[in-house]
């Protein structure tokens, strides 16, 4: 039995490598950060195509679409007791941009650089923050980006006590590390919970933040316990050793939902699972082959078994819930059709191919299933498994044939996926913009141009229409076979109250959860 | 002379997968407070006879006898516990090679004390005293030092003396010495024999001396039993050795080269099947 005042979650938190919101870009960190840091604005849980204020009381956009002015709520404090001011917000932006870690591009894509950030993101007064972008972007785009965890507000005063001096060089032009080293495991936020400890691959411990300006958290403590295996999580859940199991697989979900003490809950997430075909491969390059492969996946069987409860068949690149998502699944397993297409492509007897597969479920299962269905059309597929890092290394070097991957949006806006699936400005091996399209050596300049235009479309409905059009074209002609969109499922003990999963990884809030 | 030991029709056999090996096939003799030598060539069953009397035949061996009587105790009927209490206390045995028959990881002194303390209720200090005295009795010059040595630290002769001390400390009435000197150098061999000789005489023990060296046995013992293929072929007084009847005994006597005698070629034994019958 877990203590009454403590929530224990079994969770595969092995992806966490840093707790610094300016640096972290991992899903599990996103959940922790969103529970322990505040943002200017957050996704509106009622309608996820909109945002609502968090620290910001209100905001306005100038007519030219370039200036965003945020009014902060008053009387708020960090967990440390320091007051939250616009100065902290501005410094948080400056810090993220100057650190220039992985997620910084979410901010820098609006024209922010180390040199101009203090101008473009600055505190007008203690309660007003002004943010200036370089183009008249769709406001939905800008605001969606500001819900990303990289825009979390850190406690300037506290962090400044922990900055480490460094010697500036060409890569890092500043004389301090903005507290990055300390914040990797430290905490300087103002969320419902504060981070007490993170031990890699072991545990993350949160404690209630009594200085929180919003609704106070119900429980004293939240513990994320590292557990990788679904079966183990289920066992622990059944035994009452954990309150919530976060990584259940289909079979275990069934068992949990049948257990009288337990319940399950689920929510679709923005993560899409796909199989990509590298255009560097002579056979895979052919459009007929690409289409044939879309007919060689047994979507129904996969949906009914391997991903039952943890995903829904989904054949386009925008996840349901995001602006402009297209909900069309035209492809079915059709070996005859596929054979026809292969014959048209000049490979009637099939060919041999490899697929790099991560050692995790359900991708291994899907890969194995595809291996069987492809074989029916004469395509011999060899699975090359590896752990995540290994397969990724290969994928990023573009030395794979096929790759089964998952993609979660960098921020909750259609542009994130549209950009990575269509953009490829330099298809050479030296290309620096390593989008998914680049990784598969595929160019679609037309679609890319359309996607860029959508960025500047300030009318949300029109913007949605453009994305839908792109997806339709994409569905017919692209080297990506989309398979399903993830549904996040959690099993929990029935004595929990108000436990809900959000639409994205940074909206799984633990603050409201209580125990009976 | 009182009879100490009576052996009548002793048989030792080992059933094996390929058949029964009869190591001893009906040996009978009696022993008083005297020295009895058992000789015979390798494999003739000398050691097996000695061990059967001690009750040390390995588990899978079968020992039978019409009579096996020690000082009125029927050894055949005696329980294992009774026989164990006899061993070391009343019947003792000295083995051939001190290098292998002393426990290599235990000091010599402790091994001697162990015998004593198994059979008598004595304190540590007293046991030590008596062990030292015993070591002195076997003519070890610096008993205190040797007491703490381990077997590998002493020479063969010294080890054999320690072995004798270990076996005699509880004052047995019968001593079986199974080739006690054959692993030793000739010069040392005589020393050890002399010590044994004296102890046996002083304490009035019965002695069974097992050896393959007929000449040595005859010079050391009062009576000699000659064994061949698990049986006794001849029994005679040591003094009568020169008049041995059995061709096997004669052969054993003659085949040894001697200083000064000039027999080329040496006479060899011509084994006859009827000897073993």
């Amino acid at each position, binding site marked *: 039995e877990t203590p009454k005042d403590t929530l224990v979650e079994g969770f595969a938190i092995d992806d966490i490598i840093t707790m610094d919101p300016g640096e972290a870009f991992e899903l599990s960190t996103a959940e922790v950060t969103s529970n322990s840091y505040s943002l200017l604005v957050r996704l509106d849980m009622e309608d996820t195509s909109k945002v609502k204020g968090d620290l910001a009381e209100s905001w306005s956009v100038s007519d030219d679409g370039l200036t965003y002015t945020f009014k902060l709520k008053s009387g708020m404090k960090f967990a440390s007791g320091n007051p939250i001011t616009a100065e902290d917000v501005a410094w948080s932006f400056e810090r993220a941009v100057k650190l220039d870690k992985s997620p910084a591009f979410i901010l820098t894509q609006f024209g922010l650089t180390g040199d101009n950030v203090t101008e473009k993101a600055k505190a007008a007064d203690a309660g007003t923050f002004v943010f200036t972008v370089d183009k008249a972007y769709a406001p939905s785009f800008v605001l969606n980006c500001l819900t990303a965890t990289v825009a979390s507000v850190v406690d300037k005063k506290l962090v400044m006590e922990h900055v480490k001096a460094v010697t500036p060089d060409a890569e890092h032009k500043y004389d301090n590390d903005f507290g990055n080293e300390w914040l990797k495991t430290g905490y300087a936020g103002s969320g419902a919970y504060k981070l007490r400890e993170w031990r890699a691959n072991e545990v993350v411990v949160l404690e209630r933040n009594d200085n929180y300006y919003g609704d106070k958290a119900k429980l004293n403590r939240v513990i994320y316990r590292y557990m990788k295996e679904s079966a183990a999580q289920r066992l622990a859940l059944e035994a009452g050793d954990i309150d919530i199991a976060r990584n259940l697989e289909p079979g275990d979900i069934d068992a949990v939902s049948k257990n009288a003490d337990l319940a399950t809950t689920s929510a679709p997430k923005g993560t899409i699972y796909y199989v990509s075909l590298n255009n560097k491969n002579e056979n895979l390059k052919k459009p007929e082959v690409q289409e044939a492969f879309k007919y060689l996946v047994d979507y129904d069987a996969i949906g009914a078994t391997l991903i039952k409860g943890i995903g829904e068949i989904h054949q386009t690149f925008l996840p349901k819930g995001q602006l402009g998502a297209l909900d069309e699944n035209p492809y079915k397993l059709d070996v005859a059709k596929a054979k026809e297409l292969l014959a048209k492509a000049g490979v009637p007897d099939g060919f041999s191919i490899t697929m790099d597969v991560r050692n995790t479920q359900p991708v291994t299962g899907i890969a194995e299933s595809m291996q069987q269905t492809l074989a029916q059309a004469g395509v011999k597929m060899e699975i090359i498994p590896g752990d995540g890092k290994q397969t990724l290394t290969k994928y990023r070097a573009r030395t794979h044939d096929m790759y089964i991957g998952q993609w979660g949006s960098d921020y909750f806006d259609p542009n994130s996926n549209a950009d990575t699936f269509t953009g490829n400005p330099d298809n050479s091996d030296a290309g620096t913009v390593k989008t998914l399209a680049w990784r598969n050596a595929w160019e679609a300049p037309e679609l890319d141009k359309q996607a860029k235009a959508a960025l500047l479309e300030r009318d949300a409905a029109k913007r949605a229409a453009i994305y839908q059009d792109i997806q339709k074209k994409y569905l017919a002609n692209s080297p990506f076979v989309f398979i399903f969109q993830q549904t996040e499922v959690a099993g929990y003990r029935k004595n929990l109250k108000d436990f809900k999963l959000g639409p994205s990884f940074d909206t799984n809030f633990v603050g409201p959860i209580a125990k009976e | 002379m009182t009879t100490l030991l009576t052996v009548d029709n002793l048989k030792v056999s080992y059933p094996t997968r390929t058949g029964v090996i009869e190591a001893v096939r009906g040996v009978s003799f009696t022993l008083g407070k005297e020295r009895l030598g058992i000789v015979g*060539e390798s494999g003739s069953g000398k050691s097996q006879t000695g061990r059967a009397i001690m009750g040390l035949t390995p588990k899978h061996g079968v020992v039978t006898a019409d009579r096996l009587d020690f000082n009125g105790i029927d050894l055949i009927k005696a329980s294992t516990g009774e026989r164990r209490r006899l061993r070391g206390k009343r019947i003792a045995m000295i083995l051939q090679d001190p290098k292998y028959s002393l426990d290599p990881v235990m000091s010599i002194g402790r091994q001697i004390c162990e015998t004593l303390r198994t059979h008598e209720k004595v304190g540590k200090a007293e046991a030590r005293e008596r062990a030292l005295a015993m070591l002195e009795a076997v003519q070890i010059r610096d008993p205190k030092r040797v007491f703490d040595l381990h077997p590998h630290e002493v020479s063969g002769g010294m080890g054999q003396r320690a072995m004798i001390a270990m076996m005699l400390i509880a004052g047995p009435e019968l001593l079986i010495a199974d080739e006690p000197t054959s692993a030793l150098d*000739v010069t*040392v061999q005589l020393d050890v024999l002399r010590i044994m000789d004296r102890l046996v005489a002083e304490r009035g023990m019965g002695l069974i001396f097992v050896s*393959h060296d*007929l000449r*040595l046995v005859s010079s050391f013992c009062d009576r000699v039993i000659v064994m061949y293929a698990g049986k006794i072929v001849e029994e005679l007084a040591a003094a009568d050795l020169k008049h041995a009847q059995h061709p096997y005994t004669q052969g054993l006597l003659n085949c040894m*080269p001697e200083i000064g005698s000039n027999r080329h070629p*040496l006479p060899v034994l011509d084994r006859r099947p009827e000897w073993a019958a």
Partner: protein
Amino acid sequence: MIAALEIDNLSVVYDEFHALKDVSLAVERGESFGLVGESGSGKSTLLRAVAGLAPISSGAIRIDGEALRGSKRSKTFYRRVQMVFQDPYGSLHPRQTIDRLLLEPLAIHDIDDSERRIERALDEVGLGNGFRFRYPHQLSGGQRQRVAIARALIVEPSILLLDEPTSALDASVQAEVLNLLEQIRRDRKLTFVMVSHDLGVVTHMCERLAVMRNGAVVERLSSRELAEGAVHEDYTRNLMIASKGFVKA
């Protein structure tokens, strides 16, 4: 006349331990020479040094006047000098038949006619052809020693080094082997160097002998002198007394 085997001031040192200290000997051609002494006195070491199996630190060894260099021995040396070991249980390869065992020297020295030679060698040591395909564990100690002798003889050496060839055998078997050795020596005109701790055996087999103690030769004398008791050293006298058997007090 050149000695068959001549040893000059030979020393053998095993990691700082002097197993042989300046030993000198000369063995005439056709002679049988004995070495006696207590255990550890260096008898075996002397033979092994001649055979190139012990580390020689100084001194010289000459075979028929030809000096040997250090511990290195040539193939021709091994056709001239052979050795029989003390323990018949340890000197035959446990996984080889007698046949294979006897074939080995022939193969090494490229001697053809192996069939006949093996048969003859076995015959000579009194083992019929029936023993040819047996393994060592199927032989008695005496038979093994005969095989070892056959193996030594098969390359037709002129000098035979015998390291206590009978000490592991019963007296009756010992007599057989000693007789065999004597006969072979006569037939082949071999030179023997024989080690034993048994004075009886040595005087029986050898014309001359040397007494060793602690790695050095303490006395050299002939068998006749020994038999007559013309002994100078106490140590030798002790040995003599001991070998006479036990004298009751």
